């Protein structure tokens, strides 16, 4: 039985024909977009290289989750921690909002699974948690948890009052009242090492800046840091790789040669909706569990997918291996806060993302040489 690995307009095709069709589409595109980017480091290296060659706009499908972190961090700075260090060192953990427990479950488990064992002041006792958010949210099942009920949208204001309290200023009447604000303030200020866990997407750029500001204030007298958690950690890894490759954390355009960055204009959502400059998308959806069954793109797409069921929604599609599952791969891991090498569980005959994208770049290069 023949196993299909490439499609044109939903019909099975040879990989060679599909590559030619994809190159034809790119030839006639005025402004291509390279997106999705759900792949590993080697796949992304090829995607960025192709994007540079074809003058594409580039973004990751999950960038919206990391930009509320990136923008305030680069505009006003931050204290950032590694989860493993906080596991050993933080004596108090403040979890903010309703999203962190879900999106940061793996990271939070590192903190709930062990007691602090480093530091004269921190290792003596049990780790204490405080959660600030809706009482209906799912919270980690830690022993010493104090919960403060607070609507998600009030939290940033409350933190402003915590900062004012810590600075010895009067706060006025807020959502929680002065006494509760004082309780939160002393929880964080009396920590020997306080760790603040939150999902930046829940609080937006300004909210995240307020959280970073609180932690900066705390460091004037004690030690504190943050663990931002993301719905799609992979998008953080891609932003980092784009930064060393092109100077910017994605949302960039090679349209005029050198990389140009615009966080609003080059956002994935804008380009795929058809409201942007792009008239054709090259989309990579090749990570375990991340591939959507149908594409939500209003512009024609060349798709590299780990899930052949989604192939029909693209003009040209390729079935590719999943890095770290079907093939060895390097992926960003939120528990490590960095890149790790993952060994394949099975050996797949499917081509890698890099193999398809490099072959496509090769085709385009040949055509350019022929035309010259």
């Amino acid at each position: 039985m023949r196993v299909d690995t490439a499609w044109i307009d939903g019909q099975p095709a040879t990989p060679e024909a599909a590559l030619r069709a994809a190159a034809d589409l790119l030839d006639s595109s005025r402004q291509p977009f390279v997106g999705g980017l759900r792949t590993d480091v080697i796949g992304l290296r090829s995607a960025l290289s192709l994007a540079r060659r074809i003058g594409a706009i580039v973004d990751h499908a999950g960038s919206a989750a990391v930009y509320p972190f990136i923008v305030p961090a680069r505009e006003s700075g931050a204290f950032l921690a590694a989860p493993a260090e906080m596991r050993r060192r933080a004596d108090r953990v403040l979890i903010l909002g309703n999203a962190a427990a879900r999106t940061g479950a793996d990271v939070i488990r590192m903190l709930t699974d062990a007691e602090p064992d480093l530091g004269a002041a921190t290792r003596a006792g049990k780790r204490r948690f405080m959660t600030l958010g809706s009482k209906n949210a799912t919270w980690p099942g830690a022993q010493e948890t104090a919960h403060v009920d607070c609507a998600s949208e009030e939290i940033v204001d409350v933190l402003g009052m915590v900062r004012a309290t810590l600075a010895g200023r009067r706060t006025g009447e807020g959502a929680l009242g002065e006494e509760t604000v004082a309780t939160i303030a002393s929880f964080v200020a009396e920590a020997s090492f306080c760790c603040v866990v939150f999902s930046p997407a829940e609080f937006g750029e300004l909210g995240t800046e307020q959280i970073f500001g609180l932690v900066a204030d705390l460091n004037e007298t004690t030690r504190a840091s943050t663990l931002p958690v993301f719905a799609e950690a992979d998008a953080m890894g891609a932003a980092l790789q784009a930064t060393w490759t092109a100077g910017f954390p994605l949302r960039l355009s090679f349209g005029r040669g050198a990389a140009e960055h615009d966080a609003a204009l080059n956002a994935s959502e804008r380009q795929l909706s058809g409201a942007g400059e792009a008239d054709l998308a090259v989309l990579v959806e090749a990570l375990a569990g991340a591939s959507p069954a149908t594409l939500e793109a209003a512009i024609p797409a060349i798709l590299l997918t780990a899930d052949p069921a989604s192939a029909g929604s693209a003009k040209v599609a390729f079935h590719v291996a999943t890095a770290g599952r079907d093939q060895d791969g390097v992926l960003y891991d939120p528990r490590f806060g960095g890149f790790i090498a993952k060994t394949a569980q099975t050996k797949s005959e499917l081509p890698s993302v890099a193999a398809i994208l490099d072959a496509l770049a090769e085709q385009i290069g040949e055509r350019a040489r022929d035309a010259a």
Partner: protein
Amino acid sequence: MLTRLSGGHVVDPANGRDEVADLYVEDGLVVDPPANGRVADETIDCTGLVVMAGAIDIHSHIAGGHVNTARLLLPEWHRAFQARPGETALSKVGWTTEETGLLYAEMGFTTVVEPAMAPSSALHAHLELADTPIIDKATLVVLGNDDMLMSMIREGESEGAIADYVAWTVSASRALGVKCINAGGSAAFKENVRKFDFDDVVPDYGVSSRQIVKALQTAVTSLGIPHPLHVHCNNLGVPGASSDSIEATIRAAEGSPLHLAHIQFYGYGTEGKRRFSSRGQKLAELVNSTPEVTVDIGQVMFGQTVTISSDELRQFAGSKQASPKKSIIFDHEANGGGVVPMNYKQKSYFNALQWAIGLELFLLIEDPSRVFFTTDHPNGAPFTTYPDIFALLMDRSVRAKWLEALPKSVVKMTSLPEIEREYTLTEIATMTRASPARLLGTSDRGHLGTGAVADVAVYRPDADKAKMFGKAAYVLKDGELVVKDGQVVKRKFGRALTLRPEPDKAMKTRLDRYFDDKYGLSARWFEVPEGALGRDEPFKVVPCRA
């Protein structure tokens, strides 16, 4: 293919050469002139040009998590972010991995060492290095604030056990050497200690900075790691305390090799009405009289830059002077670190004196084989300022011009105006080629003897030394012409030079359990598998000494 570089002025101090001669290159190596009258397949006319081995930078922060955070923090200095790029030094610097490789190659540098790779960030650092074209690379792995080492010292474990741990770390992270950054200081800062001296002890470990440095120096020596322990001392940048720390550390070398990094940042006294003065002369004398130590400078040049360091304590302190006012401080495993933008101003008394202190050290340390050419890129200045620094070292009229532009109060506080020394071409080649290769144990480079890798830099002599060294006339990498007239003409990838000491099996088992139990991490995540980098032959192994 046999290539002949004909008629150049060969400056190769490692082999005692300073003469007009032909140089032959074949299959990536320097070869003897053909005896049988064989004619070269290709001749590069080097008549009137200066021929040196490719330069080696032993300390330049070019890759890894902290460097990348600096890129993230400072988008305003990437060329493309602004409609009209500013003429700051950083706007000219290679800010991506690609530009880093190209710009280094264009200056004739062919090997660069990233000196601060955290064990937890080894794969990230090597991924960036694998994306850095043309040049060969290497890394120093950072130890000295890690719980494992400090616990081993506290528990009185044997030197052999500590060496096994160091060997595992070097091998797993694919490093070429070991660096120690404010030993114990970052760990102390995590316990809210804000000042940390060489004989202070890390709370809860009862282990002093001195003990950590000595333990690592012993381990590095016993493992036969060619590069001596690379030390970033305590109290960087603190007037008085910095100079006390480096003096104590140099004296602690006790006859065994030790490398002191970016010593300019430790040449600070407290004299004068601003309580900031030069101790350059005194520090240079101490280096001159301590033959077992080597140093690099960390020269400051004026303009916008960013400081990148795993000295979390000092970066936190420095964040108060951040310009622009933003910084990122990391509480990672072991060292942590920080990224703090800095704008060194010519009109600032403090910054101008820092500049002068760096040059005092360059010029007063007598032996060019023990002082290395660095700006601690980008901490003192971006590496793109190197041509200007060569000019300052080689031409005292250039120094006089720079001094004229400084505040008068600075000129009174430095011995620089009285220093007449000018570096010769041979001394420059010693400092940037022959000695770095010896220091790193990479005997295949840094010279032009038969069998050396054919990394060659050819310069067009010019009265303006900045012009001469800014754009190489030709650069060969592994025998291939990669730069012509200061422009890259061929793209390729170099390799990362690594040691590969055989790790002890029992230590491996112990560390597997340690990382799993204590950190909830797999020890495998600290390893850099060859296949992960997606390049053919990403590494070249350098042997340890027997």
